């Protein structure tokens, strides 16, 4: 959209994946998701790279956002919007988009444009992700 804003809300899949399930399955499925996107977008592995890296650093991000004890609680991102969850989402989306755009441009001298696009797209993806979370949130009554 407008040449600058490209939201990629598929990042949510990697983030919403259950916390305590098999990590290798997450890695493999993120890779598959990324490579599928690459096929459709004609973009040779950049989505795959970004998704795999995000899936790998996901535990560290959780630790950063929720503190050390996250493994013992059943953290659900889709549960409620709290400051911790917003930090996690923003940080994860930023890292993912930065890797994505960096590999798309692949030149150090264009780093300013990369950062600019990353920032704009991060905000946009974040907004759309919040909307999606609200939409798919299971309604407890």
């Amino acid at each position, binding site marked *: 959209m407008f*040449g*600058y804003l490209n939201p990629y809300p598929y990042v949510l899949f990697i983030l919403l994946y259950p916390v305590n399930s098999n990590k*290798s399955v997450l890695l*493999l499925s993120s890779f598959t998701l990324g490579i599928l996107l690459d096929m*459709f977008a*004609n973009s*040779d592995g950049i989505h795959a790279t970004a998704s795999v890296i995000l899936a790998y650093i996901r535990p560290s991000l959780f630790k950063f956002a929720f503190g050390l004890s996250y493994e013992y609680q059943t953290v659900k991102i889709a549960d409620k919007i709290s400051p911790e969850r917003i930090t996690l989402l923003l940080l994860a989306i930023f890292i993912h988009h930065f890797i994505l755009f960096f590999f798309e441009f*692949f030149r150090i001298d264009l780093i300013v444009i990369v950062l600019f696009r990353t920032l704009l797209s991060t905000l946009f993806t974040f907004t759309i992700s919040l909307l999606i979370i609200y939409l798919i949130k299971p309604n407890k009554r």
Partner: protein
Amino acid sequence: MQQIINFIIKNSYRLLFLLLLGISLSLTIKSHSYHRSEYVNSANAVTGTVYKKMNEANEYLSLKEKNKELASENALLKELLFNKKDTLLTSKTVFRNDLNNFNVVVAKTVKNSFNKRENYITINAGSLAGIKTDMGVVNDKGIVGLIEKTSANFSTIQSILNTKSKINAKIKNSDHFGSLVWDGKNVGFAQLIDVPRLASLRKGDSIVTGGNSDIFPENIPIGKIDKIFIDKKTNYYTINVRLFNDMTSIGYVYVIENKKRKEKQQLEVETAAPKK
């Protein structure tokens, strides 16, 4: 041996990560060091079929506009047909008399991208329709791009909105040659570089494909001069060209095959080769 297996089991998660990272990184780097996207592209049966279905749905919604475009193209063709004495038909402005050098295949766009630095278009005709790599692609308004890769029923086009693309072009009035490239910033404009300072330019002059290209016929419209810059280091002009084509909405395209391309290339290679 036992230890190696233990090591692999213990670090399986990390090893899996490195493996997947390696695969995707090598794909990425390969795509940047070669001219073409080699393995992962949308010229395969799966993605092609999906895009085709999506496009069928989209097409239905824009039938009215397409009708209008077809009608106006029809009108233009009729005008050419009826006004044979018109200046429009002099050899300089329309396709040259050697039009029978060129085969034309009609195809429909099923996927178009324009918001990246390397943009590709996927069309629904492939090697079965006689399409091969490096053929030119135009539509009724002007130039679109080059065929990059083909499968049986689909092909990808390297759009002119691709930072890798470089096409020979000239200024219509003065016949000065340059190269048409894209700086990756605005989808409405491309850049014509390496135009010598001798050329006399004015804002609004037409840019068309040049005769140096062995892919496109001469005089296919590209765009109009919008702004002119002078490169102080090299004494060449850099020209901002406003494209005639709206690259964000491409419907039917025509793939052009130059039948005498091989002959011309061979002759040029033989001429350039050192004599023994």
